[in-house]
């Protein structure tokens, strides 16, 4: 029997008759948690979030309570809260649903968070292409202001805070929190070096700043509702709460599905929830957590030890969908973007497609990334268009190895991990492709590609 979805964040999303207006939100119990929160001690809310164990839903999976704890409260500088709504990791489309269909949930989560960390001002950094999303949020903020859920002296608590909706302009690097901060300051989004620029100490305008993902901030509302302890009972220890898996690519029913962490396996997600593959197709590979996570091959065996010492021996379909299991198999749950590829996929072209993305999005600040990612794009492109060279696979491996770990931000890894994992797992296909291309070159036959 198929596992049932447990919708907490997406409880009302797509329900018939549910609208994104404040009346509907309040009718469904909205803003009750904010009312509760303003009667609590801010530190008590932080303690609940810490106890909940909730990990960041943007990609890195860092515990939110810990992030908040790092806030520099001694400097006397104002504290800022920034919601990262730049949703741009390829394969991810969950935050869009919250913003368009349930914006008040985000606003409530943000105001509780702002109150808990004593933020002076909050921002929603939303990707520029969400034109309507930004308008929806602005309208929702005005609705909330009219009811005193934000603005001056919120619900008589003496605490005041406003939210500014700030639109990006099409740059992936703005999803990196220090790049986002630079962008919010009106500059090119060049990520900052850490240390010393940890946002919790030196963030926006060099003031202590918390940057959290949309889904993470929504979780705060539910943590206040059910308590950190109860929240921590959802999922497994270290992997608490639900996660929204965004499934795209070659499945019959792509979409977004919310489950407690580790409640289902990758196989159940693909076959039971997403209706499996198209008729006559077989699974080739899965990218489990957005395009920068390492690819998993359908016929791999994953063996090793989990953090708690349990040994595992899994096929691709057996991998539990949570933070730790996906990292144990050498990949990551990242932003929850699961990209499924069936046997019709040309794996070399798929990598060329990914490399094209990273080459376009490198901010250009660090030389290994600026030059290296372009170079990888060039090499995989020629592997597809018929001009592959014998040494190309080795060359790619070498370039990726020299980018990883040598850049200011994690983009260097985000761009090299796909190359390294594709080559490690599909080496034969890369070699075969290079040979086939060379032969085709000799015959003068035109090359047709579908993914690049």
């Amino acid at each position, binding site marked *: 029997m198929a596992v049932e979805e447990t919708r907490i964040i997406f409880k009302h999303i797509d329900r018939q008759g549910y609208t994104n207006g404040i009346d509907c939100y309040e009718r469904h119990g909205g803003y009750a948690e904010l009312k509760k929160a303003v009667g609590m001690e801010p530190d008590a809310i932080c303690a609940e979030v810490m106890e909940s164990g909730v990990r960041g839903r943007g990609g890195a999976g860092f515990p939110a309570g810990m992030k908040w704890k790092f806030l520099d409260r001694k400097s006397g500088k104002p504290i800022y809260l920034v919601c990262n709504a730049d949703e741009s990791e390829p394969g991810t489309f969950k935050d869009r649903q919250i913003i368009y269909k349930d914006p008040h949930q985000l606003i409530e989560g943000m105001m509780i968070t702002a109150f808990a960390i004593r933020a002076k*001002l909050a921002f929603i950094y939303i990707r520029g292409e969400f034109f309507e999303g930004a308008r929806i949020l602005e309208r929702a903020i005005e609705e909330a202001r009219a009811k005193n859920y934000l603005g001056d002296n919120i619900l008589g608590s003496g605490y005041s805070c406003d939210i500014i909706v700030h639109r990006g302009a099409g740059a992936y690097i703005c999803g990196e929190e220090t790049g986002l901060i630079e962008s919010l300051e009106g500059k090119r989004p060049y990520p900052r070096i850490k240390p010393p620029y940890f946002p919790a100490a030196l963030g926006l305008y060099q003031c202590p700043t918390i940057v959290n993902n949309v889904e993470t901030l929504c979780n705060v509302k539910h943590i206040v509702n059910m308590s950190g302890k109860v929240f921590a009972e959802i999922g497994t220890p270290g992997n608490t709460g639900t996660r929204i898996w965004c499934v795209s690519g070659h499945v019959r029913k792509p979409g977004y599905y919310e489950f407690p962490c580790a409640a289902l396996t990758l196989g159940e997600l693909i076959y039971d929830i997403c209706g499996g593959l198209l008729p006559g197709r077989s699974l080739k590979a899965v990218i489990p957590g957005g395009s920068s996570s390492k690819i998993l091959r359908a016929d791999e065996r994953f063996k090793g030890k989990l953090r708690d010492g349990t040994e595992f021996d899994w096929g691709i379909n057996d991998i539990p969908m949570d933070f730790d299991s996906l990292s144990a198999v050498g990949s990551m749950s990242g932003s929850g973007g699961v*990209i499924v590829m069936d046997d019709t996929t040309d794996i070399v072209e798929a990598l060329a497609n990914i490399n094209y993305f990273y080459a376009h999005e490198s901010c250009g600040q660090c030389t290994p990334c600026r030059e290296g990612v372009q170079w990888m794009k060039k090499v995989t492109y020629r592997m597809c268009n018929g001009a592959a060279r014998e040494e190309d696979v080795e060359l790619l491996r070498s370039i990726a190895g020299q980018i990883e770990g040598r850049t200011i931000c994690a983009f260097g890894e985000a761009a090299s991990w796909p190359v390294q994992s594709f080559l490690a797992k599909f080496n034969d296909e890369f070699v075969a492709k290079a040979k086939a291309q060379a032969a085709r070159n000799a015959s003068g036959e035109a090359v047709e590609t*579908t993914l690049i």
Partner: protein
Amino acid sequence: MNLKPETFSKIDQLIPRYPEKRSAVLPLLHLIQEERGWISNEAIEWVADKLELQPINVYEVVTFYPMFKQKPGGRYAIKVCRTLSCALGGAYKTCKSFQEALGCEVDGTSEDALASIEFVECHANCGKAPVVMIDEQMYEGVDENAARKLVEAMRAGEIKPARED
């Protein structure tokens, strides 16, 4: 700088909301581009002056972010997503279909100035691949045939352009 009075008033309301003026660079550029369709050198100098910056500070922002255009495009701006999930769903064919229907290349504008085509990166709607944006509107599951129909709809004026000019 020639802008509508309501745009000027939006700009004047927006700047003081930020703790530092410079933060208003992106929102100002968005407002100008949404009205004029692109960012001219005059606009760059005007924004710099307004925010007490050097023109280079604004110029480097305009040239970095893909959404800002430094030359006018067609009446409609078509943005086809080319990233992996959309490509797996046939985005390259979709893009080709737009090119054929409009008789222009990627990053070009059709001869009749009806539309410009861009092949852009992920729109965060991967479950509905291939996705296409026309101005501010998202279209989902756009195959080759749907792309041709969208061009026809633009020609017939059935799609409302974001800007009236």
